[in-house]
């Protein structure tokens, strides 16, 4: 993707704003809203007030010509470009960047083996190397469930770019790219991760992916922070009192009455030679 737009770019400069409504949509919104407003006004009471409020919003939306829902369901320029280049019907992308105070080669070597990342990430149960360049990931999901996926590393033209994609059996295909560039003034290495998924169910799936990105964005931030902590300090910070306490990934305390059962589940980093410098 040469000259990629930033993921943070939400509109093309040469086209209308995302969420802009066409003439028919505006007319429909305006007239339907007006009808709801009138009917709600006549009905009265709480149901009537809610109906009138919905109608007023429809009138407002028709008048200004911008729909928040349409905007939320319209891919960004980068997502549109990705879809065109990869022949995906629709794409949803998230990104995070971080600067790690270590040489580029050290970081490339470390993350080239995704199995190194498993011990750093709180929500990952395991990362198993099942074939050269192929790893099986198991994560903890709400309700005590376990989710699995298989990542296949693929070659890239640039040595400072690493790329993985999910195997063909995944319900929602994912593509992960990590780019490494030297940070200015000797401040280490800039690491940019882009995760793109191919939602099923078209725009509805895209909307679901966007909603879920509130969590996946947080997970990506935590993952990059954990990588940075490991590579800069030799450990991953934790706030637990004892090994058996729960991680509070969502700021929820584990019970202080928990009994030690499995010290092997402690995940505060990995002992890697040269981790501390």
């Amino acid at each position: 993707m040469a000259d990629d737009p930033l993921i943070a770019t939400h509109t093309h400069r040469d086209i209308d704003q995302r969420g802009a409504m066409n003439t028919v949509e505006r007319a429909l919104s305006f007239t339907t809203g007006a009808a709801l407003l009138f009917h709600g006004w006549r009905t009265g009471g709480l149901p009537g007030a809610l109906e009138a409020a919905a109608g007023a919003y429809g009138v407002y939306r028709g008048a200004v010509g911008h729909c928040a829902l349409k905007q939320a369901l319209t891919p960004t320029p980068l997502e549109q470009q990705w879809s065109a280049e990869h022949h995906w019907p629709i794409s949803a992308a998230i990104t995070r960047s971080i600067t790690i105070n270590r040489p580029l080669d050290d970081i490339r070597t470390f993350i080239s083996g995704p199995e190194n990342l498993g011990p750093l990430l709180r929500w990952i149960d395991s990362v198993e190397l099942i074939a050269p360049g192929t790893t099986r990931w198991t994560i903890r999901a709400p309700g005590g469930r376990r989710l699995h996926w298989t990542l296949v590393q693929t070659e890239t033209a640039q040595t400072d770019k690493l790329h993985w994609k999910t195997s063909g059996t995944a319900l929602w295909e994912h593509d992960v790219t990590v780019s490494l560039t030297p940070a200015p003034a000797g401040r280490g290495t800039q690491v940019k991760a882009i995760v793109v998924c191919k939602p099923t169910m078209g725009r509805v799936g895209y909307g679901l992916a966007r909603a879920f990105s509130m969590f996946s964005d947080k997970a990506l931030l935590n993952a990059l922070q954990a990588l940075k902590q490991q590579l800069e300090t030799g450990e991953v910070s934790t706030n637990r009192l004892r090994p058996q306490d729960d991680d509070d990934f969502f700021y929820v305390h584990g019970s202080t009455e928990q009994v030690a059962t499995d010290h092997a589940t402690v995940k505060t980093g990995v002992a890697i030679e040269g981790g501390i410098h």
Partner: protein
Amino acid sequence: MRALTWQGPNKLQIDNVPDPSILNPRDAIIRVTLSSVCGSDLHLLGGYVPAMKPGDIIGHEFMGEIVEVGPGVTGLRKGDKVITISIIGCGNCEPCQRSDFSCCDNSNPNPSATDLMYGQPCCGIIGYSHAFGGYPGSHATYIRVPFADVNLFKVPEGVSDEQAVFVSDAAPTGYFAADNAGIQPGDTVAVWGCGGVGQMAICSAYLLGAERVIAIDRFPDRLRLAQEHGKAVTINYEKTNVHEALLELTGGRGPDRCIDCVGMEAHGTEIDYAYDKAKQMLRLHTERGTVLRQAIRACRKGGTVSVVGVYGGLLDKFPMGAIVNKALTLKSGQQPGQRYAPTLFEHIQKGELDPSYLLTHPMSLEDGAQGYQWFKEKTDQCLRAVFKP
């Protein structure tokens, strides 16, 4: 072990909780011998910091004895008497390597909360909410300190426990405030707030070359301490118009350096205080900015306003026009005490600084809730209640 835990706004209790253990190679376990209340804890108690959970152990200004160290800790061993800098640094990231330990990239296990609030993840702070890492605090029998080789300092000969405990937080915060102010010989420095941090800022301002310090508060006992221990000129803002007094004392120029040691729960007598209080109670904003506005308005043209009072969120009616048109410099931050601890111990050893007068109420940990109540209400002239777990 026994621990003083936060259960909800203005509700503390003593609980039995599990002892901490070494989790990371650079951890140390400390048996806490002295643990002080701090004015910034009052923001947690009052419910103004949203990322608190019932059961959180509070407290971040403390000293004790090392009982265990991880395999990655060098230069420290079991039995050492140490103080801990409560703002955690890792020592390896770029901010730590330029001595900005309070900007550490790696010490917060919950980076997403401050990333959302402040734009980037902030450092971890012991006993100071889940936004700042969710680390259990020091009002307990034992505490686990991460990156011990960076955040623990041995108490040197000639320094008493009552002096050393405040090198954990109050003394470096006050010193940082004065250092940030860029004091030049002959400067007049105004300090708002004469609690523990304010007292240390006053003393530090003289150590860094101030000719005169003006201390502002409303409690006569605290103003008296500022006068006796800090040689400060004092202003009681309930009896005196602060702005007019500062201009009167400085030939109309205003103080060269203004230091805010009060923060988000400032009190005042003017209309803006009532406005702030009403909006804060309605949760329409989080800060009461009376002191900051006064400092910015009073500061001389081209001067510096240094802020170490805690602010957490959004402040209304911020006088940006005065900052621009008077060419003011505004500096702030959590204290990077790792930068200052050796210097502060030296000043104490030479008799140039004695923070022990801050300790007005030694108490047992079991009386922790009572201690906070006295501290909050300034009962019995309580400047600092310090617990002995």
